[in-house]
């Protein structure tokens, strides 16, 4: 029962709601959905406060709950999507011999590719580019590159095969790279 007193719900919104919102919006792209997930995170946390052992920090505990809500969202969403056998979005990127075309071949970005980006504008463009991907591509991209889940788990959550998965990763990467080059590098 002591645990109850170590959690203070009144401070949660002030302390964590913006951070959880950023975390969520990056992953679900839809403001309304992200707000709902943040709210559900706080409500679930409060309801299960007895389970909070105080081992993880309050912040990490909330992130874990939030992460699970996001994965649930993807699981539900994928069961309603039939589009992953969708048209090959890489078709316009390669020619009939499967080589780059003059327009789509990657251009030199003139940056240090091994350095992390400091500029905030990069991240809002990254978020926009990601939200333009087809839904299943977004789902695998987020689970792989943002959540760092392993292939097996992602396939299980989304109900897809490993080969579907790699095709989706490939297309997501091609689409995102293309979008970043057009919108960020040439700023």
């Amino acid at each position, binding site marked *: 029962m002591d645990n109850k007193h170590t959690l203070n*719900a009144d401070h*949660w*919104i002030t302390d964590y*709601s*913006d951070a959880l*919102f*950023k*975390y969520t*919006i*990056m*992953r679900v792209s839809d403001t309304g959905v992200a*707000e709902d997930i*943040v*709210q559900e995170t*706080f*409500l679930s946390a*409060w*309801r299960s406060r007895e389970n909070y052992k105080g081992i993880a920090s309050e912040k990490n505990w909330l992130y874990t709950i939030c992460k699970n809500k996001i994965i649930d969202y993807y699981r539900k969403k994928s069961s309603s999507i039939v589009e992953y056998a969708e048209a090959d979005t*890489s078709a316009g*990127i*390669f020619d009939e*011999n*499967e*080589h*780059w075309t003059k327009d789509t*071949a*990657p*251009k*030199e*970005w003139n*940056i240090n*590719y*091994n350095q*992390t*980006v400091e500029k*905030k504008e*990069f*991240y*809002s463009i*990254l*978020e926009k580019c990601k939200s333009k991907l087809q839904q299943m591509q977004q789902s695998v*991209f987020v689970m792989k*590159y*943002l959540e*760092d889940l392993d*292939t097996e788990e992602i396939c299980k959550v989304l109900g897809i095969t490993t080969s579907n998965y*790699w*095709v989706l*990763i*490939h297309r997501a*990467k*091609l689409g*995102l*790279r293309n979008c*970043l*080059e057009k919108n960020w590098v040439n700023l």
Partner: protein
Amino acid sequence: MKQLLNITCKKATYLISLKEDKAIGFFDNIKLKLHLGICSVCRLFEKQSWFIKVNTRHAHENLDKTLSDDAKEKISTALKSIQ
């Protein structure tokens, strides 16, 4: 032999993601190496692909967005209603 080892840029870019995840097979890895040895465009793609992978991981921390006051108010009300 040459036919056997030749891969297209589309295939090479597909294999790059597998390689990043250490999921590439032995022969595919050889094919990819040979392709990257002669294709500067795919070499560039490989660098940019890695850049995307690395910079996506903590992207939310740098995102310039906040929860609206209305949404905060709504959450606060919902949270109070169950306390």
